[in-house]
């Protein structure tokens, strides 16, 4: 069995379209609402931030996510790897 969550696999299996930010692995209700308050309501908006931070080079994105919405290391890891894998498939 793989160690990724169903949410992760669902997200990386297809283009993200207009999915909400909570469709990302590691982003639940709480983090999602905090991100929405800051304008990151859709997954593609967060993807933009992810890309501007050089696809999480040197943990830039993870650090930003922890600072901006109080994500813990695990949540940041999940979200980053989710976006990274999506990018390697669809970008």
């Amino acid at each position: 069995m793989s160690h990724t969550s169903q949410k992760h696999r669902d997200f990386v299996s297809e283009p993200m379209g207009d999915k909400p930010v909570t469709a990302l692995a590691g982003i639940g209700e709480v983090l999602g609402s905090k991100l929405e308050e800051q304008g990151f309501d859709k997954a593609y908006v967060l993807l933009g931030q992810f890309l501007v931070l050089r696809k999480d080079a040197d943990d830039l994105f993870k650090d930003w996510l922890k600072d901006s919405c109080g994500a813990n290391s695990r949540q940041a890891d999940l979200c980053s790897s989710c976006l990274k894998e999506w990018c390697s498939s669809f970008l």
Partner: protein
Amino acid sequence: MNKFKNLSDAELINILQDYGIQHGPIVDSTRTLYEKKLYEYERQKKTFPGSAEPSYESRQKYSTREYDDNQDDYETYEEETYTKTYARPQTYQRVREDFQNNSRFGDNTYKDISHVHHQSSYSKGVEPRRPIRPKAKEEEAEQSTRRFLPLWLQLLLLLVFAGFLVYLYISNTDQNPFKFLEESLYLSEKTADSAN
């Protein structure tokens, strides 16, 4: 931290490059992150003034990180050639193959272990997760050495202080708190003598 707020984007980028901190474009949503990174970097430099040349230290740090990444990549490709199922680097095709495999076998219970292992390590992320990050460990170690006195010295001082208090107590009061011990010792000696 406020001193970075007044800098222009170009100046901020210059400083980041001087310190060897990797960065992307500075926009409204990323600026605070870089300001914070610079602040933390300078604080670290102040705490450890021994590392005289700042840019050297950071570059060394980042170059080792890159080296680690390369190693990870190398391992990934090694695994890929080993399993052979996943020779192509495209995830999409890989996912499709995965589905085909699943439909053919119904369940992936019978996949051999190396296969499963590789699948999991791949789907974690594009680069496999570093199991234990040496950087984090170093930081922890640094934090523990940041204590004003080492732990064993603190304990030793506590013991010395306690001994001193006991000494004061004994010398100030005529009564020896350990008298009963001496008495019992004396008694036991006496009984031993009488037995002889």
